[in-house]
């Protein structure tokens, strides 16, 4: 089947991902629809990491030997690749972290809040862009505010001018919701933050895999994403920030490599990015991430986005053919990303995921670390399918067919 917008080399791309050849228990071919949870890895990422371990492994920046130089060069060139991926004005603005959660915690710990300040987030945040701000506001005696959601799953901006005021220090929000799939108006929100002198923090964990991310175009102050959702390994995330802002923040972790000089009494600190990279960093993972973002850029984020939209349109049609199934979030593919959460009347998400798994279809079930967003729609938990650049229309057919089977298995309807 050919849908308009699908990647023309889809079969070739699929061959880049060895795991897609996996056969599961019962002889079922893997249908991997959990990419918003973590993406699969192309051969080039696997090979790059293995090659580094086999031929170049050494600590970086401290080893005065050939391997040390090669390792440092590989790590720093990963930073260049990420800077290009984000269209960052300077490579020094790219800080490697453990994951997006750590990047957000870094900001919530180091941005200075005072009593009377407020932080504005949204009701659709992943817990990682919610809990750190709750903690920060509790510590500082600042106020946590949030933009609510419309019944259609969009941000409710009707009271945004009242919420984002002259006491707002930070406006932190997700670009694409991991639960509702909603694509938020990033540039509008960063402009609202700027207008009151607040810092904007964008969680691009779900956006970076599937949309062109250009930090200059959206004019944000900080942006984070995680490596393992963009075809890279786990254990590596990215904090991007405007250079002058990063250098204005107090250090987060103290230790080796983040200092200028140390005496027993006090230390002075390196400038970004090293200011925030205390200790031996995840060298191998950063190198793997560099290979991953180059892989995505070679295919083209515009084409990947078009593919996601085509698959999402097809999936929304297919899902809505299942009796008793309701989709959470926007039902227009153009307004959303490739993660689609849904409920199936009479069957608990755990049970749906179990029956689907028995047919090789991998999805996620639960609250997807977005409990408030579920609560907003009166839902305790949901089932989520999420596609990616390697997803095919027949895989969506397999999901829909397995959902019909699930209803039959639980004798619903």
């Amino acid at each position, binding site marked *: 089947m050919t849908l308009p917008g699908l990647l023309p080399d889809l079969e070739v791309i699929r061959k880049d991902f060895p795991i897609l050849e996996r056969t599961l228990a*019962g002889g079922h071919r893997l249908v991997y629809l959990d990419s918003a949870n973590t993406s699969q890895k192309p051969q080039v990422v696997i090979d790059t990491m293995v090659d580094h371990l086999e031929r170049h492994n050494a600590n970086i920046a401290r080893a005065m030997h050939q391997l040390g130089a090669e390792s440092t060069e590989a790590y720093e060139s990963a930073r260049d690749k990420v800077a290009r991926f984000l269209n960052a004005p300077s490579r020094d603005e790219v800080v490697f972290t453990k994951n997006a959660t750590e990047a957000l915690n870094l900001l919530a710990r180091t941005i200075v809040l005072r009593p009377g300040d407020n932080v504005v987030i949204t009701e659709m945040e992943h817990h990682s862009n919610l809990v750190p701000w709750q903690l920060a506001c509790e510590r500082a005696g600042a106020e946590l505010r949030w933009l609510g959601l419309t019944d259609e799953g969009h941000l409710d901006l009707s009271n945004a001018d009242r919420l984002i005021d002259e006491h707002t220090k930070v406006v932190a929000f997700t670009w694409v919701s991991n639960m509702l799939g909603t694509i938020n108006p990033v540039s509008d929100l960063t402009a609202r933050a700027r207008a009151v002198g607040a810092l904007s923090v964008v969680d691009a964990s779900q956006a970076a895999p599937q949309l062109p991310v250009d930090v200059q175009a959206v004019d944000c102050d900080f942006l984070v994403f995680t490596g393992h959702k963009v075809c890279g390994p786990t254990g590596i995330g990215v904090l991007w920030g405007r250079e002058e802002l990063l250098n204005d923040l107090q250090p987060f972790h103290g230790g080796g490599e983040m200092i200028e000089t140390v005496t027993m009494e006090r230390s002075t600190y390196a400038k970004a990015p090293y200011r925030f990279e205390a200790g031996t960093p995840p060298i191998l993972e950063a190198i793997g991430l560099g290979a991953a973002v180059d892989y995505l850029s070679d295919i083209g984020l515009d084409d990947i986005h078009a593919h996601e939209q085509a698959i999402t349109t097809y999936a929304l049609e297919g899902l809505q053919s299942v009796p008793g199934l309701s989709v959470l979030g926007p039902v227009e593919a153009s307004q959303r990303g490739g993660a689609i959460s849904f409920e199936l009347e009479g069957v608990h998400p*755990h*049970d749906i995921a*179990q*029956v689907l798994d*028995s047919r090789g279809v991998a999805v996620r079930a639960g*609250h997807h670390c977005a409990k408030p967003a579920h609560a907003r729609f009166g839902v*305790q938990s949901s089932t989520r399918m999420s596609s990616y650049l390697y997803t095919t229309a027949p895989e969506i057919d397999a999901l829909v067919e397995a959902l019909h089977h699930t209803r039959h298995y639980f004798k619903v309807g």
Partner: protein
Amino acid sequence: MSDDLDTLYQEIILDHYKNPQHHGLRQPFEAEVHHVNPTCGDELTLRVHLADGLVKDVSYDGNGCSISQAATSVMADLLIGKSVEQALTIHQAFLELMQGKGKVAPDEAVLEDGVAFEGVAKFPARVKCALLSWMAWKDATAQAQTAPTQNQAARIESAHASSRLTSQTKTQGDTND
């Protein structure tokens, strides 16, 4: 694989899921607990009533998958009317079955309908679903057994806490009271 699925979803489990036994929150009770499964968000409020060394009542309300709901129903059916001592033995047997990775053979004389959960032990991700209510019962029973006078106070406090956490749950509980 669908054979495996059938060992997980035994007919007894699906029956209890569709027709839960002893459902609802009832009076009297000496302890009430609220347990959640943080990974999936499943929630359970459970009360125990003990008297004369017997489990007089186990009443509950909650939200969860077929395995967790059926486990609660089977457990209540199994424990009500038993001595606390017998009930703790049954609890232990069920725990061993669930933690046995599919290698422990259940004793039907002890576990009765609980043997239907034998297949669950082969699905590590679902073991916590089956154990949610059993852990809640053990917790509530321990609370009910220690310092009954303090419990009176704890009970009121815990009932209040639970109404804050799950107002829906509480409303339904009240109508059953």
